[in-house]
Each structure stands twice: as structure tokens, then as C-alpha cells.
């Protein structure tokens, strides 16, 4: 080599860099971005961990822009979503989950007050146009994402206004109309061609759409109520739950009996129950063969309505009869005077489904003046007879593709297995992406299989316990009917929630790896780390000891065997 002995054998500084200790390695650290559980659980596909990071640094606009890359209606979902992200949030196993729902609401509301525009340009004139039927959350989302992906969207809507059930059936005390309309207006302003007053089956046919457009997204919703088997006679003035709800939303008044029972366990039943209570019906009952939500309950057994809506209903004095069904109505003439209730549960039917089963000997009488079925909706076959073929819903795969019809897509309530707003929004996005692939003759995206990062993959020594903020809720006495029951969080509380986020599976630039490497083999670089972190491994010297992986708080570093 030519090195010569020095006087007294002194050595020059930093000459150890000649010796590449990286040759010692049998495993190396790599950055691995695993999906955070909130991202994995969000039906709309939001990556809450990503925008919470931006919120922590008070980059609210960037956070909102990140959010609306998946979900264009955060002020809506930030009020009505059942937030499975919070259930999945790893922090829930450490102290309390992040209030992602409230953060989303805050960002959605701020975007409206600040007048932020989507980072989406109108599609170019010569881009292909795609038809979207129905302007509920699924259809709006599909039209938005198609525009975002560079396609022109023609949004057909039977009613004069956009919004679907959001507009017609969600009570204002859950979703104020000014908020909803501002969100919809902004969405439609992205260059979507909105065609109201056009009903499928009456004003145009599916065949026409299929010949005029290279792809069609069908999201007309479920406009027909299920037939309710009341065990015999039906009253003269039987009202269907959803119709009553829509009427109240549209007009603001509702018939007030002295007592009423609603049959059903979904949001329609609960919303209607609360409206009746607010309107002055002294006794409001909800009868459902499902159970009330609670720890240890099987998800298939629990009422499909949103848990906090159920608890607010209970606060407001609604009585919920769980695991009950209506055996028969008690009529005097054609008027309802009571219900014969019986214990009822959904039990496995041997085909991986559930069958509603009654238990003889448990019958009781409930005296009410009216019974209102709210047992669910199916797709109205008008215009879709051939496609539906007497089935209640259109079936589709993960991307919303309708079987045997490569140019047809569906999502939201229409597909039967996705009944929430956030699922509908996710369906719209997935279908838009699949349509884009179709039009570019690419394969549709595969169903994601990556597992979310679990709590055990984090290093909790580096976090500190902190409480979750509580958003204000109107006292029961003030819930008069149209005032919003749930409030939002203050900016400082929202920023603090961003700070409380554990950053699961993603680098938070905490400097731990940089600080703890005994071999100075982790280098800090804001500009040059291409993988989303701010650190670069110097594999020339890294010995693969694994300390960085062990002590990474967010599980972003894993050790891989050397090839």
C-alpha cells in the first residue's frame, strides 16, 4: 500500500474511513414504509398518518391537500363517518386513539372558510368522457377522481340537487346543509359536467350510456325500501322509515304520535328515532335483532348504526330493544296499538350467512301508536333490470368492476356490501382508478395485501402518554332539531393530536437512528433521502448491529439479511 511508519507511530485524523466495516454485516437496516392501521382501515383510503404529520407541523393546507387526494368531502365525513381509523389506531392500545375524525372535520371546515381549492385541474377538452350515474358520495367521488386522473366526468342525477342521501336523508343536526352544499359546490366546480333532473330508465338508458361512453359508473343508490313482513296485517297509514326521514329533512316537520316504534338497527332507524324525540314524541322505541355496541360483541351481531349516534340517541331518551323482532302487529281496526315482540338473533345458517331466528316463549307486548319499518333499502331496478336480474344489489369486485361487464363499474349502497359514506367515497376512487387503467389498457390495481404495522413493531419507550381531547357535544336539553349536536376541536387541540400520532410505519425524523448508531453509519440528509425519511444508511460502514431498527419509535427500520 505504501504507508510509511511515522515518528512515534502517530496517526492522522479520520483515517479509519479506509476500513470498510460494512464487510462485517450479515444483515442490513432498510427503511420500510408499512401502512399505518388508520390508513389500512379507512374505507376511503385516506392516509391519516401522513396528514397528521403535516397537521403537527401546522401545515394545514398541505394536510388538507393530502387528505383530498383520497377523499374530496372531509367536512362531510369529518361529521358522519364511523371512523374505523380510530378503532384501528395503535395509540388506542397505548392510551387513547387519535381523534382523527375531529382532525378531518377541522381540515374540511378550514378549507371551506379559507376557500382552498382542490389541487385538481379540469380535464383537457380532448380527454375521454366517462358517465357517472348518481351524485351521492360514491358518484361524486368517482366524478372527482376521474377529473383528477385527467378524464371528463358527466355526472347524471335524478333530483335537482347533488348529494344523494347526504342531501335528502341526513339530518342537519348531523350534517349542516351549508357545509354539505359548500363541499358539493367546490367539488362540482372542478369541471365536472353536472346533469341534474336526469333519471336512469326514464330520461336515458344504460344501453345509451354504454354506447356513448367508454365506461360507466353506476351509483344510483338504493331507492327502494325492503318489503317488511309484519307477520300478517299492515296498518292503513304505514310509513317507511327512510321516506319519513327524507320528508322531515325536506320540509322540517313530522307527524308526532304519542308513541312510536321503529323497526331496524341502521342509521335511518336511529336518525328517525332522534328526530321523533326532538319533535316531541314522548315514547320512541327502536326494535332491532342486532345488539347494542359494546366490548366483546361480535361485529356481525352489532347494530350497523354508528355507535356514537346510538349513544346520543340513548342520551336523548330513545329506548332501544336489542335482540328483538316483531312477531306480529296488534291492530284495532286498521290502526296500530301495539307490537308483539319476541327475542330474535341472527344465527349462522350453515352457509357462512346469518338467519334471523326467533325464540318461542319470549313474547312480550309493546304498546305504541305507530310502527315504522326501517329495515333497509335495495336498488330500484328501473333502468337496471337486465343487470340486476332480480337481485337486490349489483355485485362487484374490489375495484368496483361489475362481473362480465368490463365497461361497467359500481360502488356505494348500490353494491350492497358497502353501506357507509366513507366506503362509498372509497368505491368512487377505486372505480375511477380502475376506469383509468381500462382506458389506458392497463391491468386494474390488485387488491392490496400489505399488513398494517402493529403496536408491537413500535418502540413505545420514546413516546409520552397524553390525553385525547373531547370535542364539545350539545347538552341533551339543547338538542332542538337542527343545531349541530357535535362540535369540533380548537386548532391547538388539533395540532396536539397531530403530535400525539405515533407515526406508525413512517419516519418522524426523530433523530433516534442518527443519535444511536455507534458507528456513525446513519447520516442525516433532508434533501437526499429519497424514501420519505431524512436519513441515509452508509452501508460502507454499517455493521448491521440492528440498534437503529430496535430503537426506531415508528417501526420504519427493519433488518434484512444480506444477499
Amino acid at each position, binding site marked *: 500500500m505504501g504507508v510509511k*511508519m511515522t*515518528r*512515534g*507511530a*502517530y*496517526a*492522522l*485524523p479520520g483515517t479509519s474511513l479506509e476500513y470498510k466495516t460494512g464487510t462485517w454485516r450479515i444483515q442490513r437496516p432498510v427503511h420500510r414504509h408499512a401502512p399505518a392501521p388508520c390508513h389500512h382501515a379507512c374505507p376511503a383510503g385516506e392516509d391519516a398518518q401522513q396528514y397528521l404529520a403535516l397537521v403537527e407541523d401546522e401545515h394545514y393546507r398541505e394536510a388538507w391537500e393530502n387528505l383530498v387526494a383520497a377523499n374530496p368531502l372531509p367536512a362531510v365525513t369529518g361529521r358522519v363517518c364511523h371512523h374505523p381509523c380510530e378503532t384501528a389506531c395503535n395509540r388506542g392500545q397505548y392510551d387513547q386513539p387519535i381523534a382523527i375524525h375531529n382532525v378531518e372535520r377541522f381540515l374540511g371546515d378550514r378549507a371551506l372558510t379559507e376557500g382552498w381549492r382542490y389541487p385538481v385541474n379540469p380535464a383537457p377538452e380532448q380527454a375521454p368522457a366517462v358517465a357517472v350515474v348518481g351524485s351521492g358520495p360514491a358518484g361524486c367521488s368517482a366524478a372527482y377522481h376521474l377529473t383528477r386522473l385527467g378524464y371528463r366526468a358527466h355526472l347524471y342525477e335524478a333530483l335537482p340537487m347533488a348529494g344523494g342521501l347526504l342531501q335528502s336523508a341526513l339530518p342537519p343536526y348531523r350534517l349542516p346543509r351549508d357545509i354539505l352544499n359548500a363541499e358539493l359546490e367546490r367539488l362540482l366546480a372542478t369541471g365536472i359536467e353536472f346533469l341534474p333532473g336526469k333519471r336512469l330508465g326514464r330520461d336515458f338508458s344504460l344501453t345509451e350510456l354504454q354506447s356513448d361512453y367508454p365506461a360507466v359508473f353506476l351509483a344510483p343508490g338504493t331507492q327502494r325500501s325492503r318489503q317488511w313482513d309484519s307477520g300478517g296485517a299492515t296498518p292503513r297509514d304505514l310509513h317507511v322509515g327512510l321516506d319519513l326521514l327524507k320528508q322531515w329533512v325536506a320540509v322540517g316537520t313530522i307527524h308526532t304520535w304519542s308513541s312510536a316504534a321503529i323497526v331496524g338497527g341502521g342509521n335511518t332507524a336511529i336518525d328517525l328515532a332522534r328526530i321523533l324525540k326532538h319533535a316531541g314524541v314522548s315514547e320512541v322505541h327502536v326494535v332491532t335483532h342486532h345488539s347494542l355496541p359494546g366490548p366483546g360483541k361480535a361485529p356481525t351481531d352489532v347494530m350497523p348504526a354508528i355507535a356514537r349516534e346510538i349513544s346520543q340517541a340513548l342520551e336523548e331518551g330513545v329506548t332501544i330493544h336489542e335482540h328483538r323482532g316483531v312477531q306480529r302487529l296488534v291492530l284495532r281496526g286498521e290502526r296500530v296499538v301495539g307490537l308483539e315482540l319476541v327475542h330474535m338473533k341472527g344465527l349462522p345458517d350453515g352457509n357462512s350467512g346469518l338467519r334471523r331466528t326467533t325464540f318461542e316463549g319470549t313474547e312480550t307486548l309493546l304498546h305504541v301508536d305507530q310502527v315504522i319499518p326501517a329495515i333497509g333499502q335495495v336498488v330500484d331496478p328501473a333502468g337496471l333490470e337486465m343487470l340486476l336480474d332480480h337481485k337486490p344489489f349489483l355485485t362487484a369486485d374490489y375495484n368496483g368492476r361489475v362481473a362480465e361487464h368490463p365497461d361497467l363499474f359500481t360502488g356505494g349502497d348500490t353494491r350492497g356490501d358497502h353501506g357507509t359514506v366513507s366506503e362509498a367515497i372509497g368505491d368512487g376512487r377505486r372505480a375511477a382508478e380502475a376506469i383509468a387503467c381500462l382506458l389506458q389498457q392497463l391491468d386494474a390495481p390488485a387488491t392490496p395485501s400489505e399488513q398494517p404495522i402493529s403496536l408491537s413493531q413500535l418502540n413505545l419507550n420514546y413516546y409520552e402518554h397524553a390525553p385525547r381531547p373531547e370535542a364539545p357535544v350539545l347538552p341533551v336539553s339543547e338538542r332542538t332539531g337542527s343545531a349541530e349536536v357535535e362540535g369540533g376541536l380548537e386548532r391547538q387541540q388539533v395540532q396536539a393530536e397531530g403530535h400525539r400520532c405515533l407515526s406508525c410505519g413512517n419516519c418522524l425524523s426523530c433523530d433516534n437512528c442518527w443519535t444511536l448508531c455507534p458507528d456513525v453509519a446513519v447520516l442525516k440528509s433532508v434533501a437526499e433521502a429519497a424514501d420519505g425519511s431524512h436519513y441515509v444508511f452508509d452501508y460502507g460502514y454499517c455493521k448491521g448491529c440492528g440498534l437503529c431498527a430496535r430503537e426506531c419509535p415508528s417501526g420504519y427500520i427493519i433488518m434484512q439479511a444480506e444477499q
Partner: protein
Amino acid sequence: MLKALEGSQALAQAVGLCRPQVIAAYPITPQTHIVENLSKLVADGQIDCELVSVESEFSAASVVLGAVAAGSRAYTASSSQGILLMSEVLYNIAGLRIPLVLTCANRAVSGPLSIWNDQQDSMAVRDAGWIQLYCADNQEAIDTTIQAYRIAEQCDLPVMVCVDGFTLTHTLEVIDMPDQAQVDAYLPPFDFGRKLDPTNPLSIGTLVSPEFFTEARQAHHEAVMNSLQTIVTAADEWGQTSGRQSGALLNVSGPAEARIGILTLGSIAGTLEAAGEEFPEAPATRIIKLRTFRPFPAVAIREACSGLSDLVVLERALSPGSGGIVGTEVRAALSGLPEAPRVHNFSVGLGGRDVPLDIFPRLHQALRIGSGKDFAILDLEPDKLSADAC
């Protein structure tokens, strides 16, 4: 200027003239007066330096090692047990090529315990890699001390100035003490080329593998060998400044026709020179005063011995189980010469036994009788040995 000074006092003043920046002080008889005098000079502000009163000789040597490595001229002194205790550090100092001056006030080494003068202590560390210079009187001691800094700093080697304990350190002598201007002219400010400096951060004291250790040792060995020249030049130049020659490698005196020579180190030389006059009837004798023991000036010794039929090597140390130390090395240097003198090796004055003038005729008598042995202790009193002492 001429002053009557105790040896230790003179040494302290001479050290002060060299402007040391750090002095490490640990007392041990008979070096104590040196450090006490230095302390007083510092306390009176006559030497501007950091005086570190350490807690052992090991630390004394370590402190001055650290001080020089950090770029300050340093000084310490010790004797006997202290020299041995710090011996690990002495090897380290030399191997790391740290320029330093240390006064060894020669004293016998325990066991048994003795506080009196012999040269076993400095001889015990002759292989540490230091330059060793032996002084015959206190004038030589102060002149050698001043030259030692020059030699050390030019060669990047430590220098041990050996001064017989009590015999020199505690003796009053008239000393011609140079003045500060002379010394300043002779000794430039210390500028250590490898000093520890944040702007040029070297690593000193590394681990050297078999692949390179031999070369490191060779470098050290060569440096000490080459210092022979520097020692001579330093003496010459000091001679020009002071008007005094202290003999560089060795000093030869006595009649040119002498066929018998005596080689010795330290204060005994003075005794022998005086004895020559006291005993004029003794055979003509060449006195070879060996000043530089390390590096070993083999060439100069061979030259000094030319024409001798017999050479006595008289030393104040011995290697138990072997014999004389200096004598063995001198014998080796002379062997192979076509007309090498017969070498007679004796120790005297061990443990401070007085070496009187009549050592001279006793030496000559011993030569005449001849012992047939390679080595003997000349002033042994056999009656004092018990039957089972050995």
C-alpha cells in the same frame, strides 16, 4: 556568574533558566531539594510555570508526558524507587518520541532500602530508549541540563541527566551560572511538531501490529543512534556560548603515554582525577569520563582506549547474576579490535559507600594481582558477610 550553590539549588536555577512551562514535583530522597528549590522559585515568581504536585512518580512522568504532548516544555526529577515506579511511563515517553528532560538523582534501589548514591536506578532503565548523560560535577550538571533541552527538542527524544545523589545534589560547589540571555539565545521557544492541537488533531499512542512494529522500533533506535551527532553539536555550541566544554560524549584526561586507563561515569571521575595528583607514584593512568551512556558511543570509546593495555571499567551498579553493566557493554565494544586492552570490571561505592582517593592505588594493586574474574566489587569487605547471607 559565580555562585556557591548546593547542587540541587544550582540545578533548580538552571532548570528555571530553561523556561519550563510545566513542572511535575514528587519528592524522593535525594532529589527532594531540587523540587523544593523549584517550588520556591515558582512561589517567588522567578519561574513562570505550572507546578503540579503529583501524588506519585508514575503521575509525575505522566504529567510531563501530557504537558509536552500538548506543546509545553516540561521538567521533572526523581531517583531510585521513583525511577522504577515510573519506568513504564519512561518507555512510553521515549517510544512516543516526546522531548523531555528529567533529572535522575542517582540512588541505590531497594531491596534492601538505601537512600544513598549509586547508579542502579538509571542503569535499570537504560533500555527505555532515553538519552542518558552522566555528570561528574555540578557545573557539568547545570550545563548538561541546559544542553539536554536543546538535544531533546532537536531529536524528539527524552533526555535523562544523571547526577549522583547526595554526592553532587547535596554538595556545595562554586558554579558559574549562566544568565537568562545566554540561555534564551541557546534555547529557542519550544515548538513541538506533533503537539495536540484542535486545528491539527493527531492521534498519538496507537496500536501497531507486527506488520509495522519492527519499523517503529528501528525508527526509535536510529533516532537515538543519530543523536550522537546532536549531542556533540549541542556541547560545542554551548561551549561557544559559555566558554565551558562538558565533554559531549566522553572526556579523556591523563598522560598521553599512559597504558592503563580507567573508564567511569559520574562523580567518581573527579575523585580519580584528584587521586592522580595525590598518588604520583602510581602508574600513568588515562581517565576516561564517560558522559553519554545512551546512545552508547562505541566508536568514541574505542578511540579513547587506543594504545591501552589494560582498561578498568569502574561503575556504581551491577547486574546480579551477570556482573558489571557498563563493563559488559565496554567489553563488547572493544572486542574484535586487533589490540584490544584487557578489561577489568569493578563496581564501587554501592549504596553510597564512600569512594575515597585511595581507591586509586587500590585499583592499581588489584590490576597487578589480577583476580582472574570478569567482575568484582572492589570495595567489598568480606568480613561483613555472614555465612548464609548469599
